[in-house]
């Protein structure tokens, strides 16, 4: 029973269907142990955007206010896609490497653990 309803076979409108974002998909980005950013962020992005742009453009826009941002060694970053370990391909598009609509890309930066090591 996907819903308790007065009518049979009730179907809800998918408010966040991919088609509603004018050619974009939603990408969530979260920097582990850096809760000065209170939550992961949500961004509308073209599905064929190469992952290199996530690092080159989206990350600085979202996270550069953190004093540790400039110290990130991007070659040592640990990635998760929707909870699973993941190695991004910088040149391939997002959708092409399985980063689909409303996917979560998390990254951890070993050695950088937030303000004074507090996870903030």
């Amino acid at each position, binding site marked *: 029973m996907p*819903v308790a309803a007065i009518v049979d076979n009730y*179907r809800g409108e998918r*408010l966040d269907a991919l088609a509603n974002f004018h050619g974009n998909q939603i990408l969530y980005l979260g920097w582990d142990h850096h809760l000065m950013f209170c939550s992961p962020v*949500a961004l509308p992005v073209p599905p064929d955007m190469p992952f290199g742009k996530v690092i080159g453009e989206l990350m600085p826009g979202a996270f550069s206010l953190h004093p540790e941002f400039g110290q990130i060694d991007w070659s040592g970053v640990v990635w998760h896609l929707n909870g699973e370990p993941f190695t991004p391909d910088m040149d391939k598009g997002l959708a092409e490497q399985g980063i689909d609509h409303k996917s979560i890309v998390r990254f951890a930066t070993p050695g950088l653990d*937030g303000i004074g090591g*507090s996870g903030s």
Partner: protein
Amino acid sequence: MTARKLNLKDKYRLLTRDLEWEYSYRDYEEIFKQESFEGIKITDWSKWEDPFRLTMDAYWKYQAEKEKKLYAIFDAFAQNNGQQNVADARYVNAIKLFLTGVSPLEYQAYNGFAHVGRQFGGVGARVACQMQSLDELRHVQTQIHAMSHYNKHFDGFQDFSHMHDRVWYLSVPKSFFDDARSAGPFEFMVAIGFSFEYVLTNLLFVPFMSGAAYNGDMATVTFGFSAQSDEARHMTLGLEIIKFMLEQHEDNVPIVQRWINKWLWRGYRVLTLVAMMMDYMLPNKVMSWQESFEVYFEEAASALFKDLARYGIKMPDYAATAIAEKEHLSHQAWSIFYNYGHAAAFHTWLPTEEEMDWLSEKYPNTFDKYYRPRYEQWRRMEEAGERYYNPTLPMLCQTCQIPMGFTDMDDPTLVSYRQSEYDGDRYNFCSDGCKDIFDFEPEKYVQSWLPVHQIYQGHCGGAEMEDVLGGYYRINLGTDNLDYKGSPDEARWNDWHGLETAEEKLKKAS
């Protein structure tokens, strides 16, 4: 000779149960269409025990007395410029949150009880719901009147009902009630009558009303007193509906248990706003969120669930998560609002040194370890003239619609992520509670109106943040939003009390 005056018992019977009649030319199922689709089995409505024992004429008389006293105090408050005597103008932001976030829920409760007051086959339940419906209408009206005086002297009050329907953080309480009101009548009663009015109400109203008392806000305190006897009635109705359903049929037990699990979690998530109000927004603190949670939830609920055990009802599993979160909740919530203070219709600020010390004392296991360093960093940024605001919109939970600021209680420095796939799409959640609610009824929650996604779909006034915040939300930018420091509210307050801002002092000194 017949008696000219009815005795109380007869009068009560005539004005409540006797309002019912036999349905002779329509089927019962046709008249009470919504009574059975949720799976709740009622075999005998006559077993319903009327919770209120009040007739309409007595009700009007009693409420009128209370109103008279209440409005006399509002008048006195206004005449004495009560707005100048609150503890500090920062306090008023708690009231802005109440008027935009909570008062419209009273109106939703009025609508909801009026609706279910038509749906039940039992006349006793119908009369009780109608009476609560009237109470709730009275609550929204008196709250608006109590707070309207502040609207003359502070920013952010002017468009509270418009904002309730649109502003991102107000979608949290709004969607909570929309969820309850679009459920069937029995679920609504478990959601609002029992979970909210019986179990959680003290966690909402006691902090706001005692907060008002501690901070010199006589108008709001007096409203609180005036609503108290109503709330006592609402609690008896909430408990009666639960016991009635459980006693009517054993098949009702698992359904009621699932609703209790769901609605205590939904309600607890809404109370996140109360947690931060208590720990961060009251200049004179009453008690910490943790303390109030221990008294009004842990102690009270464990007694209640002991009582309900004889029906086979257990404490919801999610209670363990809520208990673990009590040392984190308010800090994570205030972090969210500090991050997005440019998008809020009230002011935010950094806790002062003394306030941080109070938080360290109240939260010895968590504040210094996880949260103080964050505030110190924000302080350094503020002192450098770069007050921190998060430049990117947050990810929201599909069910509670709160930014994903809650962390894993096994590692409080990691965001708690949950995900489901349904009909080819991904859905994301802040907790097991929110995920389970979605998984059970996905066709309901695929419809969540998530403010961030709505902005990106272009439904909120435009692509620029000014269009959304100023145009669509009707926040007066630079006036209602941003930090308390430097706000017109602060300037007026300082003017009334002959105070100087830190900035002015600095200017004079140089």
